């Protein structure tokens, strides 16, 4: 058991947790009755995906993806001396020292999309509450059945 956990779970711990959180969120988004609960579930579902992406970009022993200026200037000098070709000295920026920036960029976009969706969804909740006086899905669906033919 311990051995299995060491070899299977721990190296992929983030990914296991991502699946667990995703399942929780998805379950709430589909299965809960209260609309606000659905939205909490939906948000949790979306953050689970963020966890997947950001976990991909992690490198052991790496720092945050900000290349400090001295290192950057060194790289500029290196290129100015025609560095790319012969390569007597190594290129000053070692990509292994920085976390992968691309997933971060993608997830910034995804967070923004998430909050935009949440805003629209909450507005819909309020309109639904104004029309039906409740936020419980079964009650709303019942009320809809009674107004079936007034359109």
């Amino acid at each position, binding site marked *: 058991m311990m051995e299995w956990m060491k070899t299977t779970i721990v190296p992929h711990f983030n990914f296991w947790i991502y699946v667990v959180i*995703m399942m929780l969120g*998805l379950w709430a*988004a*589909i299965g809960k009755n209260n*609309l606000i609960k*659905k939205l909490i579930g*939906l948000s949790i*579902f*979306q953050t689970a*995906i963020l966890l*997947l*992406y950001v976990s*991909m970009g992690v490198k052991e022993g790496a720092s945050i993806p900000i290349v400090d200026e001295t290192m950057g200037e060194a790289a500029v000098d290196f290129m100015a001396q025609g560095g790319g070709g012969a390569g007597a000295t190594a290129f000053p920026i070692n990509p292994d020292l920085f976390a992968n920036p*691309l*997933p971060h960029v*993608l997830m910034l*976009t*995804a967070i923004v*999309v998430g909050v*935009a*969706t949440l805003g*629209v*969804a909450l507005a*819909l*909740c309020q*309109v*639904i509450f104004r*029309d*039906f006086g409740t936020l419980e899905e079964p009650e*709303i*669906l019942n009320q*809809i059945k009674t*107004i079936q033919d*007034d*359109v």
Partner: protein
Amino acid sequence: MSEHLPVIVVLAPLFGAVIVGFFGSRDRRLCFPIALTALALSFICSIGVVHHVATVGAWDYFVGGWESPHGVGIQLRADGVNSLLLLAIAVVALLALVYSIRQDGEKDAEKSPFFYVLFLLLCVGLFGITITGDAFNVYVLIEITALTSYGLVAMGSSRRSRVAAFQYLVIGTVGASFYLIGVGYLYLAVGSLNMADIRAILAANPEIANSRIVGTALVFILLGVWTKMSLFPLHGWLPNAYSYCPSGSANLMAPLVTKVSVYVMIRILFSVFGLGVITENPGWSELVVLIAVGSIVAGSVMALTQREIKKMLCCLIVAEVGYMVGGTWLGDAGRWGLTGSMYHILADAMMTSCLFLAAGVFAKQFGATRLEHLSGLFRRSPWVAGAFTLGGLAMIGVPPMCGFFSKFYLIRGAIESGHWLYIVALLGSSLVNAILFFRIFEIAYFGEVPESSEPFEPSEGEGATPRRYAVWRTAPLLIAAALTLLLGIFNRPVIDLIRGTVVENTGIVSMEE
């Protein structure tokens, strides 16, 4: 400027939306001309793109000039299929826009500028999804399309439209997130987001292409786009969402949103995973074709039970999505099924646009939302009835119309690959369409002109409309009907362009009929 056409197609409605939002609330009369100009610009540019693709070949555009190394920036790619789809989107959007012209004094007139903003942003999303060559960019644009759709659906005046919009929102977000999960797995396996780059990596490393990660990625991307296009088990949201939204936006969303999702699926199969996944996994493609058959059957059966015109048309969309998904996954050697699906995307966009415009005209002009309200339509308004008939005939698949040719190619592909069940479903669904539409034709042709027809009572949600706007509603309908006919009659060049792309990308040698 001509070298920037692919990006201008997307940018024109974006600038239009922003300008409408900025000036529209001050003077509402400006909204319509600005929106019209923006979409007309897109239309002209998409003609330019089609011309370039037809004469020169596929067109790559690198946003920000980040061309090398490949995959650093975002690539736009126009080929034989999506350039045509761009044109179709521009046409349908223009027609829907002309139809939806608002007038002062209507209720919620303060919101009409924002209707145009959402309308144009929806067009931005559709154009963008079609032309982009980057897997993540598709996600962002899908979300623009989705958010604008939620807004437009919820603008409907029925109480049910809000509930429909909320359900659409939950399902749509889950679908888009599934797509995002799929792209994430793909990125985890290959480390790139550019479609062409992923294709190259998968082709060079078969062990990656056959790994479980890439398989899961494919499953989730497909689940995501299937949710978005309302394929059979995931179709529940569509009829409600589209039939309760205001007809101005239904005319844009119903013909295009599902078709663009189908195109995303084809694009992903085509230029990311390669069509090999269809032929190498016969069991799975068999299953997908079965799902598609289920979608056709479900859509047709649901349509038969409906008495409301708009709901019936919405159910037919589900069946049409089944045609296209099934056709894509037939996997016949000549790729005729795929060709048929691609042509059907265009054909279906035109015919659905025609039918929904007609349904909108029925509702606004005659107050007719249910089948029995249409009685005596031919005598009341022969042009509207004639246009609706053309759309209906195209849906059934009567020869000179575009619906016939797509079904012809789909059936050819199905025969070559031996999917008899699909053929049965296709023909059965055509039969159902025939029953549905001939029932309407019968009511409309032989039915009595109702006594109270002249000053009709406006149904809830549509609002009374002065007669002088009638021409703005009827003209797009007639144009759509004419285009449905023309797309069928002049199908050769369209099919040739599509075949050219298919042949170029899949390496089939034979191009003979």
